[in-house]
């Protein structure tokens, strides 16, 4: 069974601070997705990474896939209140069913 551990579980920061969220596994994934979910809504796909060592940027968000494709990180620069939400990572290991982490709940205070 593939498991994805996300850390930290909760993060409360001030606007303008930087932060990093981690997603780790002992299993190799073919690809990994990051989602953001706001209260009362479904998760929204932010990015998919597929190549070991890959780095993708989405405005102030930087996503990295580990060289061995077992881990990933999400770095947010100069966080804004609009970044508040639940961040989920999900790994695909060659089946129809992705493995989801339990999520990191981020609150950015003005």
């Amino acid at each position: 069974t593939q498991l994805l551990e996300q850390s930290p579980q909760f993060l409360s920061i001030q606007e303008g601070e930087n932060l990093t969220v981690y997603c780790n596994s002992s299993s190799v994934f073919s690809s990994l997705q990051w989602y953001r979910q706001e209260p009362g809504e479904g998760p929204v796909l932010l990015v998919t990474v597929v190549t070991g060592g890959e780095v993708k940027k989405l405005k102030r968000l930087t996503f990295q896939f580990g060289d061995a494709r077992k881990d990933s990180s999400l770095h947010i620069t100069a966080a804004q209140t609009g970044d508040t939400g639940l961040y989920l990572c999900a790994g695909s290991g060659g089946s129809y069913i992705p493995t989801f982490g339990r999520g990191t709940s981020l609150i950015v205070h003005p």
Partner: protein
Amino acid sequence: SQTIHQWPATLVQPVGSPLSLECTVEGTSNPNLYWYRQAAGRGLQLLFYSVGIGQISSEVPQNLSASRPQDRQFILSSKKLLLSDSGFYLCAWSRNRDRLNQPQHFGDGTRLSIL
């Protein structure tokens, strides 16, 4: 473009009553379809998934069932709801062409409260 519709958005039901949640996808054909339940502010628990009409796989044995009567329609049902069925239910779809790298796309969810 593809869209996913899930309804109702909110539902309050008494214990022992039946349930039917519906999900439809537009703009794609032969999608993989999924039902998840999510505890407050936490990760997703996969309940059912389907790779084609009439093909349902259950991940967690429980009080719920799923059906796929049409290619882009996925229904979550129960004959008699339990208090423990309360939660946030999410429907999702992914492309069926390449199982290795396909992300999922989620509906807006149904908040189910059992009284």
